[in-house]
């Protein structure tokens, strides 16, 4: 039996300890906002936060993260108003949207570390996230906007731990 806190909610489940966190989230606990893109840590679609740090859930066996705190896109904010979520909507960043959960999780982790990232910071933090639709220029713009929004609101980027909507106790 494994135990994991996802978006502030505790889950217990029984799976093969080698099962990557991605498939636990998606298939077992039904947090489908986190996406599969490559299964090899090459595309970033599966990015979630482990204690605030961005990790590739497709490469992370469940045994490595047990008893720790995971944040997925569903828990990035309680009300969908994390500055990254606001900036993404304001600039209509997504095209198909599939990679954007991972993009936003990487962006939020960057902003938590660097309040006003430079283009170079953004390139570094985001180069592991592929967007085949090609929304990169808007992603860059949106990260700058999110930084400004956070600044304008004169608040810290809200903590990542909040309650998710779609998770279910098991």
């Amino acid at each position, binding site marked *: 039996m494994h135990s994991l806190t996802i978006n502030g909610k505790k889950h217990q489940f029984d799976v093969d300890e080698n099962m990557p966190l991605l498939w636990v989230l998606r298939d077992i606990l039904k947090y489908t906002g986190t996406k599969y893109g490559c299964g090899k840590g090459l595309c970033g679609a599966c990015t979630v936060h482990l204690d605030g740090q961005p990790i590739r859930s497709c490469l992370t066996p469940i045994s490595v993260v047990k008893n720790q705190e995971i944040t997925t896109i569903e828990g990035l904010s309680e009300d969908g108003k994390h500055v990254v979520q606001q900036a993404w909507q304001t600039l209509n960043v997504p095209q198909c*949207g599939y990679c954007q959960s991972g993009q936003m999780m990487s962006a939020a982790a960057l902003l938590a570390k660097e309040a006003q990232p430079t283009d170079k910071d953004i390139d570094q933090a985001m180069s592991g996230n592929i967007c085949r639709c090609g929304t990169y220029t808007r992603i860059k713009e949106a990260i700058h906007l999110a930084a400004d929004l956070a600044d304008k609101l004169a608040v810290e980027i809200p903590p990542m731990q909040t309650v998710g909507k779609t998770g279910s106790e098991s």
Partner: protein
Amino acid sequence: MSKIENVSRRRFLKSVGLGSGALVLGVQFSALLPIPKALAQAIKTDKFEPNVYLQITADNKVAIIVHRSEMGQGIRTSIPMVVADELEADWQQIEVIQGLGDKKYGSQNTDGSRSIRRFYQPLREAGASARTMLEQAAAKKWRVPVKECQAKSNTIVHQSSGKVATFGSLVSLAAQMPVPKKETLVLKEKSDFNFIGKSNVPLVDGQDIATGNTTFGFDVDMPNMRYAVIARPPVLTGKVKSFDASKAKKIAGVIDIIQLDNVEEPVLFKPLGGIAVIATNTWAAMQGRAALDIQWQSSEHSSYNSDEYKIALAKSCDEPSSILRNKGDVEQALSAADKVISAQYYVPQLIHVPMEPPAATAHFHDGVFDIWACTQTPQSAQSNVAQATGIAPENVNVNVTLLGGGFGRKSKPDFVVEAAILSKKLKVPVKVLWTREDEIKNGYYHAVSFQKLSAGISAAKKVTAWSHNVATPPIGSTFSKGADVITMEAGLGLIDMPYDIANVRCGAGKAPAHTRIGWMRSVTNINQAFAVCSFADELANATNNDSKDFLLSLIGEDRFIDLSKEESKYGNYGETADKFPLDTGRLKGVVNRVATMAKWGEKLPKGHGLGIAVHRSFVSYVACVVQISANESGRIKLENIWMAVDCGVAVNPERIKSQMEGAAVFGISLAFYGDITAKDGVIEQGNFDDYPVARITDVPPTMVEIISSDAPPGGVGEPGVPPVAPAICNAIFSATGKRYRELPLKQYNII
């Protein structure tokens, strides 16, 4: 069926005040349908449904049915914009419903950049028809002349009396009005548009995407659902010789192992065969597949080796079996020319790699299929499932989820058929998931191509002859075994070469297919525009001309090109020449606009260069200028991209721009990295490590401008792609003097 959540994809738009400029955060109603019909007749009894694209209910809600697939082009926003505009609907009262696969909508095949091109007019008429009937209903109710009743923001207003009635209050009366004849409809004037042509309409699915609340094909979940991954033959039409599943069956979560029927050519949209592993979760299915021990029997296609094939293609270019355009006398003009310039171009086999690989869920129960899939073509999914399973098409309900990218891959419903076959066999819901490796190794590929061009130049430095031969395996091979010469592909950038040259000949050589060949975003325009636009630049340089000025002179006078007079059959993307002529004036228009945007002709920093290309495809015109810099070690960097697009009426300018931005990145990917190769018939690549695509670090600022036009709307999703790769290579030549004629550029160690 009440447990199937989110897949009905109804969506209310709330708090999306236009022009507010404020952050737009919709309130969400996750309205769940108790039955899988997108248009559940039973739910709303008091409603006005004048046509298949919209419904208005007594609660004043307007449901707009989107019958095309959303794959990032923004169609779930653009279709409601068109219908709501003509209807005079209040955007906040709109609910968006994804249409099931059903022939009543007309074609739902979301490819060929056709959604707005083909449905702009019918959708406007649908909105206008409903508006007219509501106005008539109000006139009847108030006993006033109908011309005094006007629709405004989900109400009908009677100006002189000040009476106002909501759409909702009029539905019963409106439903009794005769549907107006098409020719009597009065469509809105451009100046009265509320949404069409406006750039401030937020994405219908924007909030769901931002909060991870979307349902893609991969995300469909049902009670008792099984997960399936399939080991498919590594060589096309290869067969399972024998297999041992004993280890696979020991994997925890693996439930069943099922052998699928072999595929025979033509492959069409049939599953490829192989062994399916059925499990309680995706990971177990993948582990089970890895544990399978399969002996494959090869096929005739194991002869396919990319290196040898390239040599054969080059030879085939010299022996065209089919002349596709012929004007004047090219042989004579070439021999009479003062100078003959020749060049050959090679673009390798490519694959789509949408971020979401194909996935489909099927549930066979009570003689009926309920299917959810990220398909570009629910109607074809329906007919192919029906054919493969013997179930009547009307008993195959195909729900369209969001698509995590499509690019043409998801217009082939083979993966939907796989899910249907397995569910019928297992009598439970089955979700078939393709891994990235599956998608790359067992795709419908953009065909490899070799092209040879020659031009004659007179003493007066005028281009007098143009010869262009291509060899590339045709898409027709997927539908007709052994087809080995292009047909419709000729109209995608080969015979529609728009330069004003007296002697022109285009031909195609034979090229047998050894993988499934399919269409990929902008299709053969990718390679044919690469050659045509690169060669134009080569001719500019050979004649010591400025690339942009030469391009304009090569295009020549403003005119409509009539290819039917040049021994060619031009498909014109299924459109008539009357409505969508091949207009050199518009072609030059985008060239001039993009040159202005890029400040063409002004001095550049040392080591920088500009490249230009223009191409018409899907009846739209796109010109692109790329600025690159080269450092001392010869590495190049993209500095800027400018694109000018003339797609006629710009319905959703914001999404048109995003499509151009995305097309630039798609073009960068194939110019820099795209290279699928085969060894003994097996595709050698398998993931983003050996089939890379552009990342954020590859992509420069991209500026897009849309030409203002009242011409009928053309395509948008694809036309941005073709000019990008040649503009990049032309820019590299301008900066470095090196001409690259074979893609991808990564092989030259300059990226």
